[in-house]
């Protein structure tokens, strides 16, 4: 009884430090891996193949984390996450092209471009989210699936040119920029004439900022409300938590992050096709999330990194590449779902917390 006054305070600190510790470990992993890779790249110890994958890995890890916010934390299935990436890629890249003369610093241009990409993706998220998230059931999956396809066909038919007279814009009608200008989006040819300004540093930073946003969101009252909706909507309403508000908030944040990642992705290449952001890409990101574990943010990053690298590493076995990829996916899924393996994992975990448990048991006996 003596220290009962102090108990809540120390519990509060231990509680905060526990989740914060886990989050900081994830931040630490990202930073350490980034530094190691950067050193290896500088030392010339990394093959071209892997070096080319560094930015895509960061981008897809960001995509997976943001989709996990929608699927794992909010509990709403989205099948068109690549659509938001696409919106961010095209709007961000156009913005960056327009800023080229005005803002000489490529880093600043990239940041502004990503912000613009995020805003447009968020607007798309709001437009889809407001009507659909009011409904219960799998409507979001169906509508996001359609959204991804619509966005893809829109961007294969958009023409945007930039010349001394300004920005020219057209849908369906092929246009040409004046002699002194250039086409930024050229219909089916996609984004053209990008001067890639994405860097590994900026991509890793994007992932880190995404993680901070998502972790801080989850560990706030807003994140709790979002998870409450996932677990029990009627109960959530009964304690005064509005369903549409928090569903929309999580969905739009998820879309905005995907938009920023899309801009980064586009700025890594000199051309970019709209078909790059198709249904297959959406499903690929969903595979990262499911394989890494629903609601498990660190798992999403690891799955995205491994599964983005894997096809490249498997290039040496050429014809068997996709076969090997499929087999590895299946093996991982078997491991993840096998009860005996899970039991062993649980045993390992319980050994870790054994001391805590005996402590608790003795408290229980006293009571």
């Amino acid at each position, binding site marked *: 009884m003596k220290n009962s006054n102090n108990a809540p305070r120390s*519990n509060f600190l231990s509680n905060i430090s526990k989740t914060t510790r886990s989050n900081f470990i994830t931040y630490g992993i990202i930073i350490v891996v980034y530094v190691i890779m950067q050193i290896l790249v500088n030392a010339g110890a990394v093959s071209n193949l892997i070096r080319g994958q560094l930015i895509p890995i960061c981008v897809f890890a960001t995509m997976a984390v943001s989709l996990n916010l929608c699927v794992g934390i909010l509990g709403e299935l989205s099948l068109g996450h690549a659509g938001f990436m696409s919106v961010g890629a095209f709007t961000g890249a156009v913005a960056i092209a327009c800023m080229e003369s005005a803002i000489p610093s490529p880093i600043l241009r990239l940041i502004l471009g990503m912000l613009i990409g995020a805003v447009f993706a968020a607007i798309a998220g709001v437009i889809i989210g407001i009507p659909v998230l009011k409904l219960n059931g799998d409507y979001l999956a169906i509508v996001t699936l359609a959204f991804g396809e619509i966005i893809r066909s829109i961007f294969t038919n958009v023409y945007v040119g930039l010349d001394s007279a300004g920005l020219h814009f057209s849908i369906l009608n092929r246009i040409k920029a004046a002699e002194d200008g250039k086409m930024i989006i050229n219909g089916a040819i996609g984004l053209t004439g990008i001067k890639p300004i994405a860097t590994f540093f900026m991509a890793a930073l994007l992932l880190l900022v995404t993680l901070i946003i998502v972790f801080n969101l989850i560990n706030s009252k807003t994140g709790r409300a979002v998870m*409450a909706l996932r677990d029990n909507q009627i109960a959530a309403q009964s304690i005064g938590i509005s369903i549409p508000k928090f569903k929309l908030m999580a969905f739009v944040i998820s879309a905005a992050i995907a938009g920023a990642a899309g801009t980064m992705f586009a700025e890594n290449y000199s051309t970019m096709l709209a078909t790059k952001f198709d249904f297959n890409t959406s499903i690929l990101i969903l595979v990262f999330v499911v394989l890494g574990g629903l609601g498990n943010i660190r798992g999403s990053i690891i799955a995205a990194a491994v599964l983005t690298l894997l096809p490249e590493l498997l290039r040496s076995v050429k014809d068997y590449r996709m076969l090997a990829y499929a087999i590895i996916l299946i093996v991982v899924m078997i491991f993840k779902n096998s009860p005996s393996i899970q039991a062993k994992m649980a045993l390992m975990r319980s050994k870790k917390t054994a001391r805590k448990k005996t402590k608790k048991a003795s408290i229980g006996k006293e009571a």
Partner: protein
Amino acid sequence: MSEVKMVPYPSRSIVPERDVNERPVLEAMHLGVNFGGLHAVEEFNITVGKTEIAGLIGPNGAGKTTVFNLLTKVYQPTTGTILLDGKDTSNMNSVAVNKAGIARTFQNIRLFNNLTVEDNVKLGLHNSIKYTTLEGILRMPRYWKGEKESHERAMDLLKIFDMQDMAKLKASSLPYGAQRRLEIVRALATNPKLLLLDEPAAGMNPSETAELMNTIRQIRDDFGIAIMLIEHDMNLVMGVCEGIAVLNYGRIIAKGTPSEIQNNQEVIEAYLGKQKEA
């Protein structure tokens, strides 16, 4: 236990004598709903005093849970009016009704199963925590202050049922009785004027039930709120409730003090009689 004196209240009901000069927390008039022709609840009239513990009993399928669902707008009533602390709730949805002052528990437990016990309670505190989403993401001082306060408040609330030690456990890992108690704590966290408990003692053993009875009284005294409960455990109902309404086939067949209800012939036939046969 001394019987509480129930006195007539102007609008067709009775409330405890101490509440009669206060505005009743709940006045439901001509409340009714039908589900595709089935009149699940009809002509439901009740007045609950400001600090009354009221009981709602009746055989299975009588419409008790439906009444709670009408009061909390899980279903929109087809007829009638609900005045909460004098305010008409016709245009309110579940969320607004909770903000206006009704909190509830569920017959089939509805916890946030993947969250901890503490987070379940903090969710009850959601609307009283004052920081914005952006302040949360940026971890501004108001975030730390809000989280600290809600943690302390959650722990205080868990103390009602001596559940502080369970704060870090996942809600779904709790035993059945503790889950029911957690639902009560979560509902209380929303700072209600009226607490609706749907079969709070279901699945509890007699000693747990006896303890619950004391806690219900204590909650009423400490929080100064009204409590309406649905329960099949007659010891609990008769022991803790001041006024009781009996529902059968969606209609109130009797209202009164526990002793009046126990001696009401129609009630005995409709409800207690059936219990004895079984």
